[in-house]
């Protein structure tokens, strides 16, 4: 061999450059799907992110049902219809913070810059990550539902009740994720994002009716818990899964979702477009 490695790379790169003809620009749909594909790949390559968020709910479900179920509802089996919708909501609401983590990570690692320097319809990045989120939410929901079914939970609302509860939950979580997207852009490090989201999500999901009825709590706490959006969401989900839809709660959830999108959607898009 008289050709050294350097020259060989030179030639091959020149050839590869020569065939780099430019196709027509990607459509918004195709770039959104591509970003969705990326989100799926990330779940495939980093499945831990799913374990993190589902192990706790699984533990909570088992512990609360068998340790406190008797005391709270008379027996573990009677507690499940109360707990299952609550845990479902808590789990999925918690996962929403990964939206912020993903975006923040992209910014920190320079991936965001790379994407911004491409001639693509920029919001497709957000649309694509919604696709990934959908998969995450659906998988987590399925895990909780399957687990509680195995433990003897028989939702009165049947398949329709469960599916519509999950659908309502997804609507709320997508709306909520606009806040996380904004946070992802605004905060400096993934750790800061983690800290802030925990600070918001822990009180939000625990100071609620996920585990026990607010009526059993001290008055002050009860009034706080009752206005917590998560409580209303749990009420709505519970009513659907119990086969006795609570029109008021469901409407309130939809209104809250609409308000979240109306306020944080444009705000986030502005930050997104103007990020210096």
């Amino acid at each position: 061999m008289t050709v050294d490695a350097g020259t060989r790379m030179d030639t091959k790169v020149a050839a590869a450059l020569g065939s780099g003809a430019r196709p027509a620009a990607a459509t918004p749909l195709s770039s959104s799907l591509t970003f969705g594909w990326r989100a799926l790949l990330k779940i495939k390559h980093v499945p831990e992110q799913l374990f993190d968020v589902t192990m706790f709910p699984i533990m909570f479900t088992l512990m609360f049902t068998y340790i406190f179920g008797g005391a709270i509802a008379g027996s573990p089996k009677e507690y499940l219809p109360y707990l299952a919708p609550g845990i479902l909501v808590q789990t999925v609401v918690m996962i929403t913070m990964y939206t912020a983590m993903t975006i923040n990570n992209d910014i920190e690692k320079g991936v965001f810059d790379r994407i911004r320097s491409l001639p693509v319809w920029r919001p497709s990045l957000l649309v694509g990550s919604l696709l990934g989120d959908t998969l995450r939410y659906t998988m987590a929901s399925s895990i909780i539902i399957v687990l509680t079914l195995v433990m003897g939970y028989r939702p009165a609302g049947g398949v329709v009740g469960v599916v519509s509860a999950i659908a309502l939950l997804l609507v709320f979580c997508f709306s909520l994720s606009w806040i996380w997207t904004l946070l992802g852009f605004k905060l400096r490090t993934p750790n800061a994002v983690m800290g802030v989201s925990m600070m918001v999500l822990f009180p939000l999901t625990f100071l609620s009716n996920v585990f026990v009825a607010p009526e059993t709590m001290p008055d002050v706490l009860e009034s706080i818990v009752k206005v917590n959006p998560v409580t209303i969401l749990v009420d709505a989900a519970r009513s659907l899964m119990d086969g006795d839809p609570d029109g008021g709660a469901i409407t309130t959830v939809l209104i809250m979702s609409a308000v979240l999108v109306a306020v944080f959607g444009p705000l986030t898009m502005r930050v997104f477009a103007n990020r210096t």
Partner: protein
Amino acid sequence: MTRIAVFLKGISCGSMGPMSYAIETHDLVRIFGDNRAVDGVDLRVPSGGVYGVLGPNGAGKTTTIRMLATLLKPTSGTALVLGHDVVAEAGVVRSKVAMTGQFASLDEDLTGTENLVMLARLYGFSWGQARQRSAELLDAFDLTDAADRQVKKYSGGMRRRIDIAGSIVVRPDLMFLDEPTTGLDPRSRNQVWDIVRALVSAGTTVLLTTQYLDEADQLADRIAVIDRGRVIAEGTSGELKASVGSGALHVRVADAAQRDEAVRVLESTLGTEAVREGDPCAISMRVEDPVGVPAALARLRDHGVATTEFSLGQPSLDEVFLALTGEAVHEEVNA
């Protein structure tokens, strides 16, 4: 190699107008808080070839590049990239340039193939074409073996290569490379240099930043030296060297005790300041006019100073850089 390069040049240079500038900036400024990171930069980068931006840490290289690549809005001033304003016509600029940042910017969780397929899709290739393009690029950059490995498991040199590969999924008219060889071993650095040369022979204008003077010297047709957000010198490497004086005189005296005497003689003969090097026998000094040099050697002999080395060379870019920024450093020390 040459044949392919010439062939490529033939098919890809048609679009460039004569004497057009790939980049033209006027009084470009970017302020962070009260830090004037880029403080009035005027650049004229000709189309074709490599333009080097040389500067120490914090000089404002990355900030300048990010403005030119439409990733950062200038605080004031204007910049035309390939004839388009980076603010008003950001979309057009983006469709013609590519940028490889100072730090790797691919998705570390994804494999090499997945990253390139994703980028190719975003550029508008179909899934099938994207896979084919990805395989082609991985092969060209010697990364086929690592194609299905996550990028976070790549070595520094491999990361640089996949990062650059990601920037040429479609051949850009202008490519920004921000410190492409910082932290690479000599072999990886040579590979990156090869890639840069291949880019140029394919008709892409390359603007690269570097802290390495020999890199700018080796690769760049023209060089802008920037320091504290300002261009302090601009030209070909030859012009820069000439602007500092015609050359540098290196003298070694046989006996260290005679060095002070030699410095006195040299300074009085040549009229420039001599620098005592770390080596107790060595002296170096800038020479404005080489005509006086033989006389200086003769006068050293007249004073009984024996020399073991007496050589006149072109100043290195290092010396250029020191000469250009040295005063600034002194100022800071005195303040």
